[in-house]
């Protein structure tokens, strides 16, 4: 997707690490971080996670509300912190349950981060569900003390929102990657990401083709994340549809409440997650 002029082979020649396909992409060459970057982070309660681990103990994928999860974020109180040579383990209790969390210590910054974490302290955990010796484990890649406790309330509200959103999507039979992820840290919601299939809710079935194409374009993550939305000329160029048809579709969608104008009458955004 991202053409890169950087010649990785020349830069790293003679070194012990030779990134593969370095000229192909600007994405991370470390497999674990690359996997993290391509997947959203889902806010969950400990109870949701424990139930998902129990229900999916035999399968390779963990799913919550019908959505595959890999990276999760939780908040809770630390209990029984144990420091070992290569890792730190603790239990996270958020009032809905307790779960064991592991944080590998690879670098001094990891040690410093975990040294600040004490028992009975509220923390925010960003973690990955990794398989280890045949069972899934919560492996944290960031553990941060909570400083503003409104974050605690926010997290539970976000868990509720994501749960409602995902279960509502299942109820309306929306297909393909309906995962809703956290808006903390600026990662956009991915309810409409990365698919060419129709991911529009049932009420869009009455739209004409042009309107559906316009909605599909406006519901891409980049368009949803943009504050100014998409210019109508961009729609004309990308969809290869004449301007008058685009504007007719926009007017219809605007009247129906599916899109709205932003900075002027030529920029529009989808009302999804507005």
């Amino acid at each position: 997707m991202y053409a890169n002029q950087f010649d990785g082979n020349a830069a790293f020649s003679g070194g012990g690490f030779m990134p593969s396909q370095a000229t192909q992409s600007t994405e991370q060459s470390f497999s674990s971080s690359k996997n993290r970057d391509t997947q959203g982070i889902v806010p969950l309660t400990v109870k949701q996670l424990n139930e998902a681990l129990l229900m999916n103990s035999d399968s390779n994928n963990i799913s919550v509300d019908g959505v595959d999860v890999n990276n999760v974020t939780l908040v809770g109180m630390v209990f029984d912190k144990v420091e070992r040579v290569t890792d730190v383990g603790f239990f996270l209790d958020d009032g809905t349950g307790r779960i064991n969390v592991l944080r590998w210590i690879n670098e001094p910054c990891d040690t410093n981060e975990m040294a600040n974490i004490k028992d009975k302290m509220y923390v925010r955990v960003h973690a990955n569900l990794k398989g280890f010796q045949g069972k899934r484990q919560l492996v944290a890649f960031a553990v941060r003390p909570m400083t503003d406790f409104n974050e605690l309330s926010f997290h539970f509200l976000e868990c509720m929102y994501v749960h409602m959103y995902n279960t509502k999507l299942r109820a309306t039979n929306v297909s393909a990657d309906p995962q809703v992820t956290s808006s903390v840290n600026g990662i956009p919601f991915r309810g409409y990401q990365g698919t060419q299939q129709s991911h529009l809710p049932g009420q869009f079935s009455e739209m004409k083709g042009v309107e559906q194409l316009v909605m599909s374009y406006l519901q891409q993550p980049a368009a949803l994340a943009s504050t100014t939305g998409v210019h109508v000329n961009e729609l004309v160029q990308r969809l290869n549809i004449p301007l008058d048809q685009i504007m007719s579709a926009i007017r219809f969608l605007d009247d129906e409440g599916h899109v709205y104008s932003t900075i002027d009458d030529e920029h529009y955004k989808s009302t999804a997650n507005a």
Partner: protein
Amino acid sequence: MFVGRKVRVVAQVMQFDVGSVIGKSIDDHQLIIKGSPPPHHLSKHVEIIGIADTSQFVAAEIWTSFGDNFGTVTS
């Protein structure tokens, strides 16, 4: 309903008493929190985890200062 069970409550600290702290819950009910608060300064809002003796008394086990701006809207 929660009497005798472990509860978690956020209260606004109103007054310190001997062996207890008098607080106000979010729904404006008086709460008497039994136990000694931690030695460090308690903020205006605290979370108490403990056993509810009655609907007004909580025997605190864990105190957490939630700051002075908990639940408020800041501009």
